[in-house]
C-alpha cells in the first residue's frame, strides 16, 4: 500500500472560483517533483473522498472556501481538529467530511495519519465560467506562493 503524500485538488473548474483547488493542485506539480508525492484532482466529497485517500500517510487537500466577511484570496490552513467547512470536502448526498473520516476509522480503513486542509477564500461559485473573478485572479500569484510554501513545509 502506498505510504506517500497525496495532494488532492477539489472543486469544479467550470464554476469560476470553485476551480481554484484544481488549478492550484496542477500548479504545485511544477514545484514538487519528489517521487513520494502524488497529485490528483476530484469533484467529489463525503464518502467518495475516502476512496481517494486510503493508504496514504499524508494528504493535503486544496479547496475553495466561503466564510462570513472573508477577504477574497485569503489562504487558510487547518486540520480535522480545527476543521471549517470548505466548498467540496463534504457531500450533501451522503456524509460530511468529518463523518466520512469517522466511518473510515470505524470500518478499519487505512485513513491517513496526517490530514491537512488548505482553503482559499473565494467570491463566486454559482455561475458557470472558466475564469476566476477579478478579485481572486488579482491575488492568484500571491496565493500560489502561499500555497507552495505551505505544501513545502508539510512535505518536507
Amino acid at each position, binding site marked *: 500500500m502506498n505510504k506517500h503524500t497525496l495532494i488532492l485538488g477539489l472543486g469544479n*473548474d467550470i464554476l469560476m472560483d470553485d476551480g481554484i483547488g484544481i488549478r492550484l493542485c496542477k500548479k504545485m506539480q511544477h514545484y514538487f517533483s519528489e517521487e513520494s508525492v502524488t497529485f490528483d484532482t476530484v*469533484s467529489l466529497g463525503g464518502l467518495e473522498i475516502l476512496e481517494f485517500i486510503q493508504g496514504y500517510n499524508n494528504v493535503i487537500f486544496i479547496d475553495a472556501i466561503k466564510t462570513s466577511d472573508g477577504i477574497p484570496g485569503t489562504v487558510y490552513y487547518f486540520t480535522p481538529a480545527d476543521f471549517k467547512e470548505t466548498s467540496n470536502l463534504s457531500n*450533501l*448526498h451522503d456524509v460530511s467530511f468529518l463523518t466520512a473520516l469517522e466511518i473510515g476509522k*470505524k470500518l478499519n480503513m487505512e485513513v491517513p495519519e496526517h490530514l491537512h486542509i488548505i482553503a482559499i477564500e473565494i467570491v463566486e461559485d*454559482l455561475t*458557470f*465560467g472558466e475564469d476566476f473573478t477579478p478579485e481572486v485572479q488579482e491575488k492568484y500569484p500571491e496565493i500560489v506562493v502561499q500555497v507552495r510554501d505551505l505544501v513545502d513545509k508539510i512535505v518536507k
Partner: protein
Amino acid sequence: MTRYSIDPITRLEGHGKIEIFTNDDGEVENVYFQVPELRGFEKFVEGRPVEEVPQIVTKICGVCPGCHHMASGKAVDAVFGVEPTNTAKMIRELFYMAHFVHSHIAHFYALGAPDFVVGPGAPKAERNVLGVINKVGVEIGTEVLKQRRIAQEIQALIGGHQTHVVMNVPGGVRKGIKEDERLDIVAKSKGFVEFAKFSMKIFNDVVLANKDYVDIIVNGPYSLKIHSMGLVDANNKVNFYDGKVRVVDTTGKELLTYKPNEYLENIAERVEPWSYLKFPYLKKVGWKGFVEGQDSGVYHATPLSRLNASDGMATPVAQEEYERMYSVLGGKPVNNTLAMHWARLVELIYAAEHCLELAENKEITGTDLRNKMYQTPKEGVGIVEAQRGTLTHHYQTDDRGLVTKANLIVGTTNNHAPISMSIKKAAQGIIKKGVKVDDGILNMVEMAFRAYDPCFSCATHSLPGKMPMILNIRKADGDIIQTIKRD
C-alpha cells in the same frame, strides 16, 4: 405571528432555507422553501459544439453526473437525428444501472436509514450513518462501501471516468465492452442483486416489523395527494433510460403521456417571487397553486411516482416487491411521502437485476458501437429518469452544430412544489401550540423533504453533508427568541 427559519449552514450564507410562519395560536400558516439556482449554463454552452456538451454537463453536479451525461447524450442524438445502435443502447443502459445502484445505496444507508434504522427520536449524535453502522454492524457498513465502490468501478470502466464520463457520442458510445470485462460485470452484478435484496430485508425487519414506524409512514403528517410522473417502456414498465413520460392522476388513471420532444407542450414552469428555482406543473391542468387533489397541476417525479405511473417492474424480484408494497399500502397510487424510501429499494433491486440481465447478454460485446447516419443538426430533447426525478435536456443549434440555446429541467426541480407542500404539511402536523420545538421536531420536519432524496447540487451547487441546520424561532417583529443548532 412567529417565524421559524431553518437555514442549512452552508458557505452560501442566506441561501437555501425554510421559513415557517405561525399565527398567534401557534398553528403553522405558511412555509417557504427557498433555494438558489446556478447561473449561466446556457451562456456557458452557447457557441460550443453540441457533441461536447455531454462531457461538459458531467461537471454540473458531482452527485448525478451520469444522469446529466445520459440525458445530454440522448438530446445530442436527437439534434443529429440519429438513433444509437442496439449495442450502444445496451452499453449505455448497463452504465446507467450501475449509476442507480451506486446512488440508491447511498441514499438508503446514509440519508434515509438513520430515521428508521436508528429512529426518528434517537439522540441526534446517533441519528446518522454511523448510528446505522452501529445498529446493523460493521460488516454491513463495509459491504455498503464495497458495493458502492464496485458500482463506481463499472461506471469508470464503461464511461471512461467515474465522474467525468466520456461515453456518449452522437449515435452511440465511444468504446465497447470486451468479453472478459463482461464476465467481470456479471459477477459484480450478482453481488448487487444479493445486496439489494439484503437491503430490502433490512427495511422489512427494521421498519415494516415496527408498528410505530409503519404508523408514521401511513398515518403521520407525511402524505401528499398529487399526480405521479415517470418514464415507462412500451409495456408501461418502469424504465430509467428510455421510453415515454407517463403521468397518472391522483386516482391512478393515466392523465397524459408525452415523448421527449413534446415536453414543452406538457410541462410549464411557475415563477414565484420568493424563490430562485421555478415550480414545474402540468400544462394540461394548469397552475392552481400549492394545492393537493385531482384538480391540482402539481406532480411529483420520484421513485414512488415512477412506480405509481407504471404498470410494474421489468425484472422478477423487483416486480414481486412492487406488488408487495402496493398490497401492504392499500393499492395504487400510494401518496405516503415516506413510502419513497420503500419505492427506492424496489428500484434498487430493479437496477441490480437489470444490470445483471444486460451483462449476461453476450450481444453487449458487439462492435456496432456507433450509428453515423447524421442529419443536419438542429434541435433535440433527451429525457431520462435521474435518481431524484425526470431529467430533461433540450438543445438547439445552428446548422454547424454549435449550440444556440439550452434548457434543463433537473430531477429535483420537478419536485420543488411537492417538497414545499410536504414540508408545510409536516410542519402543520408537528408544530402546534404548546409543543416544544426541539431537535426532534426539526428532524421530523426535515424527514418530509429528505424522502425526496433532494439534491440541489444542480441548483445550489453543494451543501455540507447531513444538512446541518439552524432553527430560529422568531417573534413577529423578527427578534430571535430561541435558536436550535444541529452541526
